[in-house]
């Protein structure tokens, strides 16, 4: 039997627009994932601490305030420092395309912006987790 994927959905920073984060949390849970939702206003430290404690395979960050570059870098760095460098990191929200390369550089696996199809998010996360587990799955 396939091991259930554990996901942490976090809202770093002060941005309070959580519709997307909640919808993704509900959706992943219905798709069979184990989901932890941090709620609003989490510091990168708190998110990484929760992710490591809960031993999640995936961290999803939702940011709509434009503060994504700093916040994502901080989470990504702290994950690596804490030994969570195999955690799949994805980002959702209002993210201008010009920032995609910088986010990927930081280690973000996927960026989901408005209009992303639900099924696409689920499939993408599964695929990335498989790759990290070394179960292959090309591209």
């Amino acid at each position, binding site marked *: 039997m396939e091991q259930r994927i554990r996901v942490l959905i976090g809202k770093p920073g*002060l941005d*309070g627009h959580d519709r997307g984060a*909640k*919808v993704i949390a*509900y959706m992943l849970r219905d798709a069979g994932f184990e*989901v932890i939702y941090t709620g609003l206003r989490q*510091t990168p430290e708190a998110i990484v601490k929760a992710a490591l404690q809960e031993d999640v395979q995936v961290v999803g960050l939702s940011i709509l*305030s434009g503060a994504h570059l700093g916040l994502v870098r901080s989470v990504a760095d702290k994950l690596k420092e804490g030994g969570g460098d195999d955690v799949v990191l994805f980002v959702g929200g209002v993210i201008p395309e010009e920032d995609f390369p910088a986010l990927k550089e930081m280690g973000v696996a996927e960026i989901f912006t408005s209009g992303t199809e*639900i099924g696409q998010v689920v499939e993408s996360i599964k695929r990335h987790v498989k790759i990290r587990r070394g179960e292959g799955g090309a591209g």
Partner: protein
Amino acid sequence: MTEQEDKIKAEKKAWEEGALKKAMERFSFLQEPPARYYTPLDRSDFDFLEKVGFPGQYPFTAGTYPFDPMAGLSRLAAKAPQSSGLTRAAMYSGYGTPEDTRDYYRQNIERGVRQGPNLAMDLPTQCGYDSDNELIEGEVGKVGVAIDTLRDLEVIYEPYQGDLNLDNIASNFTVNASAIYLIAMYVALAEKRGIPIDRLRATPQNDILKEYIARGTYIFPPGPAMRLFRDTLVFITRHMPRMNITSMGGYHIREAGATRVQDLAFSLSIATAYIQAGVDAGQDVDAFAPRFTFNAFGGSMEVLKEIAFQRAARRMYARLLKERFGAKDPRSMIIRQPICAHIGPSSTTKQRPLNNVIRATIGAMAGAMSGGPPAAFPPYDEPLGLGWSREAQQLAQDTGRILACEARILDVVDPFAGSYYMEAQTDEIEAAAQAEMDKIDGMGGIVAAIEKGYVQRAVSRSAYKYQRAISNGDIQIVGVNCFIGENELEVQTNRLVPHPYDPERRARAEERQIANLKEVKRMRDQKEVRRLLGKLEQKAKDERENLLPLMIECAKAYVTLQEVCDVLRGVFGEYEPPSIF
């Protein structure tokens, strides 16, 4: 049933079994007709004067005013362009440091803008944190201007002097949890300039309850937050007759995922709580209700229903004020809001973004037909996440102008009044919203319903249901889940006009604001600051005290926003949201 209705009923049956059935045969995949036709049978007990009446009169179903002000002004556009009033008031704006925002407003004034600032504040300001707080690093001056102390407001308002001084302009502050201290700062600014505060005109958003449901810039639990709201209501009612108390919004709640009915029910339940707070504080409802405004209710692409929604909202609010609170002044009973029906920002798509011009135009038409101006909102580049370009704003403005001046869409007030469909739809939305309001009343009101987490969960579930409906194709969005084949052209657009905010200034905004704050803290009288904060703590513990007068003193002594909020955090505690599962 009248003889005429019997006749219509018989004819309807014949039509359903004849022409309609035949038409349906071509669509074997449909369970029921894809379109409805309404007849006098759908509004058989319709009493025109009771349900609709005249625009600008109780129950205000047809409109808040006898006609939209823009209808009058639009007649002058080609004759006296300066006074045509078809140029928008100041846009919601605020950048980086107070200096950056001041310079932006100064440029606007040089270009001929006469309106006061419509201030966007950064999230630390809205959540009660100072710019030098390490926890909020990276957020200073983003999504709005940073305001830590009165010094910052003094800088922002530097260009507003002479005939643009505080007694001649109206300001707008998008701030909720910390609104009371921003109001105190504005009063302090006026007093330092020698302007009597009864001359001040401003609209603070000051709508804290919706922050627990949407938008999320809360600080304290709902109970103490309502006490702060009460303090602002009482102070403004007593001392600032030209100042608005709140600008309530259903639009944030809808954007967070609420259905149309939830938007209406939750917004009006929130209004009910605010009115009750004023009444409980011993104020006459007609003394303060006319100073309540609405930011906007939510919108969507289902424009016929949105028109009905606006009509229902006006009628329900009027009845609420008159019947439940015993208001006598018609000005207490009206919904004052800048726009009526519109599409929501969440109706716009990132895919083929120019389609959003069409969507907003449809919303603008609905706006005009629902008793408001033809406001094309939002500009088409809203979902691109880059800020509104000047081109997009120009298009949005011109849309309204074309609708008013060329299409003459404002020539008739409430053109759907008496329509079999529209009256039935208005009744239906009203009944459903009333049922939800009654449910909330049964829980002990909206504050209790928020404390239980009922409202937050209801909205999140609706958001998820909506997303699933997009996913399975029950809801169709052009360019997103339909008409996305290879033969479709991905219409792209260029944005040529540069953003007014210099990227280099933006990059250094946080560092510059921290330096500003450091300087203020160095110059001020620390002993006085400590004395005031001690006094604030004492007064905060006594529920009967109004904190606003003391906060004006705090503002004048350059006490920071976070210093004030930290004292209140100590006394009131902080809000802990309920679990979403």
